[in-house]
């Protein structure tokens, strides 16, 4: 029996068609085998495809949203992947997003979609509904959400700001060193004369001090 479920969020609607996977002991109302899907986005052409295309969309869009929440959006999806997402270049990098969809049909040029934050958050929420719905038991091979390491967060800080502290420290060290070099070197104490009549007395006094008994 063919099943069809819909997920909606303001400007985004996702329709999922599939069948239960009886070999995996799934219930009658569970989609285990995805036969097709259609994504309608207001103001953009509708997208449709197979399971691997939906998995590619989720694998690109959801990690992108994760990085956007941390303020460090970057490109997701390989060059030959069906879906690629990246921030717009220039000043709109944090407010507009470019999605490139490559068709599996031969002689079809890639489709480029420009999303603003609101449209992207609608799409993300729609995909969230899908991945959390217990009626859909399809493994989309999504990576687990993890905290970003320091090197990825550092990209958020401009290079000039990042280098300011070490450069200030090096300048302070250079100034202190040059001031130190300008100070006169203290004079050495006078070298005892090499008079043989005086030197034995001086050498004799030392052992006495060394063997001075402790009271």
């Amino acid at each position, binding site marked *: 029996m063919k099943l069809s479920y819909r997920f909606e969020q303001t400007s985004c609607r996702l329709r999922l068609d599939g069948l239960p996977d009886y070999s995996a002991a799934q219930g009658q109302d569970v989609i285990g085998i995805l036969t097709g899907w259609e994504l309608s986005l207001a103001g953009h052409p509708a997208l449709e495809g197979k399971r691997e295309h939906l998995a590619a969309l989720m694998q690109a869009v959801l990690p992108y949203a*994760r990085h956007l929440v941390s303020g460090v959006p970057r490109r997701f999806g390989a060059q030959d992947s069906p879906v690629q997402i990246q921030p717009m270049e220039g000043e709109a990098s944090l407010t507009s997003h470019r999605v490139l969809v490559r068709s599996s049909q031969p002689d079809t040029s890639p489709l480029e979609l420009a999303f*603003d934050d609101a449209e992207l958050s609608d799409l993300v929420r729609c995909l969230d509904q899908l991945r959390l719905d217990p009626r859909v038991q399809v493994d989309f091979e999504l990576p687990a959400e993890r905290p970003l390491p320091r090197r990825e967060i550092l990209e958020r800080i401009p290079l000039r700001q990042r280098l300011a502290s070490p450069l200030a420290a090096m300048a302070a060290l250079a100034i202190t060193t040059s001031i130190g070099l300008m100070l006169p070197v203290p004079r050495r104490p006078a070298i005892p004369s090499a008079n043989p009549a005086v030197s034995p007395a001086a050498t004799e006094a030392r052992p006495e001090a060394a063997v001075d008994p402790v009271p």
Partner: protein
Amino acid sequence: MANASLGESSLAQPPLTQRPAGARISRRGLERLDLMLLSVEALDLNGGEAMVWMAAQLGFGELFPNRVELWKRRCYNPLRLACRRGELSEPETDALISLLCALADRLYPMLRQLLSSTEPEAVTGQRWGLFQGRLEELIRERLNPRRGGVQKLLDPAYGPQLRRQLIHGLAFGAGQGGFDRLKASLMDASA
């Protein structure tokens, strides 16, 4: 900005005990978490009461039975005037994040309006202005103005970007699906 109605929430968060155990959220993360809760209050005039009501709806009535208990947990934000030392336990931070996700879900239409580029520019500007006014009022009332982070939030040059980041966090962290995304983001390494 219109006051969101306290409708029945469709969010049924899974019990926190089912979540994988992980590291605690740093002071920096607690700072962002409280700032996002402050943004919710700036968007919703009745936000303080809505938080307690939502906490009871989500089953956190024992953790946050009243506004004072909620306020005590939020005071772990180092930018607060009445700041508390130490860290929150994982069930407490998880409860605060779940609460934030549920509140953001309730306010999602407002968040979407703020982020949308299809709305008339004048109207969007007015919405952002209203949010900025309310948020700055709350910041001056509750946060320590001598802290650099607070001065940055009130700074006309840095403020808009920071406010947009807070709204981003709320919009992409809204709902049940946003919990893991938001939690992972709050646990990011500090730069």
